[in-house]
């Protein structure tokens, strides 16, 4: 990372997933072409399904390829209809003679009767047959296993495609599939420099991916790919400063004792407790029905502590969880316990970045407990690790000011503060995203493993 690049602080954005309620059951009984006629010829629902199935197979995981471009012409409501039609596809895969379909939307007591036009249904039956026959006459597996494998192939490839569409939208600042009536949407609130800067609505690709993985058989909660997907994407979202509580809630619903997921959820709450988020949320104007799930600082810190403790229960040697638990305890005023936790972290940390954080945080705890000398020593050690970092220098300076030694106070900070700000790096500036520093490698590795498994 270049110095210039390292100095930039990742922007924070908050995301809320909202699946817009269906206006009524009636539209589901018609094709969207009939429902929303437009001058340009629009694909029918089954054609959209066909296009999507082709795209998931053509798409190279982690690549910005032409398969993703297919969705440029899609509208956000097309994705919402697609969720229903994928379910229909699986029903027909399991029972090719089925012709009556009901769709159950979460939160609605009664299923909705879904009626397809003749051409739509014929194409869906064809697509189901192709999906069922994908693995050929594999005699090594039972029909049920083959069905599960073929169904999971669609779901996982679909999830990978939508993960990449979501990432593409984030890094490319563009959205594939928008306009038209409201459909599956995610709302994003950008928070540059502690201010809320407008609300944008995009296609909910993350939500789409999560919804697909929920359908993995036999049980999503026991599927290793799904578990790793949640952990890796959670890290990725945090690495780019995208705070998405829904993502963690859904992941933890499936994998409640996964140490990595618990750790990242703890980081999310820790971030949401920060003044930058708390202040921005105070000034944010959020329409009714959209909930970014940011609680008060006190509650967020309590939740962060709880998540880090659970992560450590699942994986006692999780060093980063210990460092962050120590910091959160300190912020909650539990200085004695914070001190204890951070002492072990300082002793165990090998990676310079983690040593830096642990020493800085322990220094603050020693200071809070009145041990200024040890605090000084810890800050000095942190300053040695990152000589151009301003935080330990300011901390050392502040200690000298407290001692009434103003010359020493100035001397402690001035050599670093005299350097141009954009050429310096202080890991503290990146603390809120540092937990995701391996996310890109982890996502690549996840995709590589997936491709191997998917080819089998």
């Amino acid at each position, binding site marked *: 990372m270049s110095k210039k690049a390292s*100095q930039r602080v990742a922007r924070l954005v908050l995301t809320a997933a909202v699946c817009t309620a269906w206006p009524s059951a009636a539209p589901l009984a018609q094709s969207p072409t009939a429902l929303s006629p437009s001058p340009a010829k629009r694909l029918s629902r089954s054609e959209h399904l066909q296009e999507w199935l082709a795209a998931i197979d053509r798409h190279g995981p982690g690549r910005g390829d032409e398969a993703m471009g297919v969705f440029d012409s899609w509208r956000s409501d097309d994705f919402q209809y697609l969720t229903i039609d994928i379910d229909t596809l699986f029903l027909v895969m399991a029972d090719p003679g089925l012709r009556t379909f009901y769709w159950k939307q979460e939160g609605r007591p009664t299923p909705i009767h879904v009626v397809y036009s003749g051409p739509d249904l014929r194409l869906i039956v064809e697509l189901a047959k192709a999906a069922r026959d994908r693995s050929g006459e594999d005699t090594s597996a039972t029909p049920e296993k083959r069905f599960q494998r073929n169904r999971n192939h669609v779901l996982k490839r679909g999830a990978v495609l939508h993960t990449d569409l979501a990432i593409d939208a984030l890094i490319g600042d563009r959205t594939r599939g928008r306009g038209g009536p409201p459909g599956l949407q995610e709302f994003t609130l950008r928070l540059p*420099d502690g201010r809320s800067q407008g609300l944008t609505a995009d296609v909910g690709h993350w939500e789409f991916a999560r919804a697909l993985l929920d359908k993995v058989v036999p049980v999503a909660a026991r599927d290793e790919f799904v578990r790793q997907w949640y952990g890796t994407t959670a890290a990725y979202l945090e690495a780019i400063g995208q705070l998405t509580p829904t993502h963690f809630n859904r992941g933890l619903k499936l994998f409640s004792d996964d140490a990595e997921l618990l750790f990242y959820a703890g980081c999310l709450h820790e971030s949401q407790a920060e003044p930058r988020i708390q202040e921005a949320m*105070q000034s944010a104007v959020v329409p009714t029905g959209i909930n970014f799930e940011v609680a008060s600082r006190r509650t967020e810190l309590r939740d962060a502590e709880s998540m880090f403790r659970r992560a450590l229960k699942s994986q006692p040697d999780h060093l980063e969880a210990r460092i962050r638990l120590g910091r959160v305890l300190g912020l909650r005023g539990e200085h004695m316990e914070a001190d204890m936790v951070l002492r072990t972290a300082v002793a165990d940390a090998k990676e310079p970045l983690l040593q830096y954080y642990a020493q800085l945080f322990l220094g603050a705890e020693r200071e809070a407990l009145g041990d200024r000398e040890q605090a000084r020593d810890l800050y000095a050690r942190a300053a040695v690790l990152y000589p151009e970092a301003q935080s330990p220098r*300011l901390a050392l300076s*502040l200690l000298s000011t*407290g001692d009434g030694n103003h010359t020493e*106070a100035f001397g402690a900070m001035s050599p670093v503060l005299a350097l141009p700000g954009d050429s310096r790096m*202080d890991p503290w500036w990146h603390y809120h995203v540092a937990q995701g520093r391996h996310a890109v490698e982890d996502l690549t590795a996840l995709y590589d493993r997936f491709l191997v498994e998917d080819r089998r």
Partner: protein
Amino acid sequence: MTRQLAAAAASMLLGGAMAASPQTPTFSSRLEAVRVDVLVTDEGRPVRGLTPADFDIRDEGMPQTVDLVSFEQIPLNVVLALDVSESVSGDRLDHLRSAGRAVLSRLAKADQAGLVTFNQAVEIRANLTRDAAQVLSALDEVQSSGETAVIDGSYAAMALAQSAGADVRRGLVIAFTDGADTISWLTPDRVLDASRSTDAVVYGVIVRSRNKASFLHELSERTGGGIVEIDSTKDLAERFVAILDEFRQRYLVSYTPRGVSSRGWHRLDVRVKGRKVSVKARAGYLSGS
């Protein structure tokens, strides 16, 4: 530190910058003198002509004898602490530069100025100097980007204002921000606590928003400064200059504490005898740390 008017400092004051003043104040050279910056106003207008006998100073409730009072005579260490985060761009940045220039142009020969800017990085762009051109040049180079470390930046500015050690100039920090802190390492409590050990007076200039800049409110209150809330930066230069003018019209009151402990936090109560005027001074000082 508040109570450290050392002999060296006194001699510097008398023999140095103050020598040119027609009404050179004569400070006690005793080591334990306490200096307090006091603003006395009557319906918003500074009250002039007060003498030591006019002040009633209580240190931890104990009445003290004021040794010396000076007015408009002691040179200043003026530090501009400017928010250059992303939100301070375009006209706002131009206004900020103009405001800085306006202050620098009104400094007296013996005054010193320094410049601290902050986004996430706190930068000392100009150490205390009597060469205003140097500070101006640094000011012109300022660009905006990034987050807001107003706590880190304000602390660094206070430390810079005090950096001359035994210098007896009065320290003024004019801190400007248009938002709340988003990234400081230092916490409000720690900096507010440290402010008890400094003489620097902080004035905050804040662009009014839904975000509360409560730290600067508290810091200016504790250091005996003031807060100026504005809706627009259009008149920022006038605001900055008004702060400088107000600061110049403050009394520097000195006394040698008697009947109080030599260590710890000392609560101060400053009044003007027999007059219904408004008195603004720091809430106290930390001694013997």
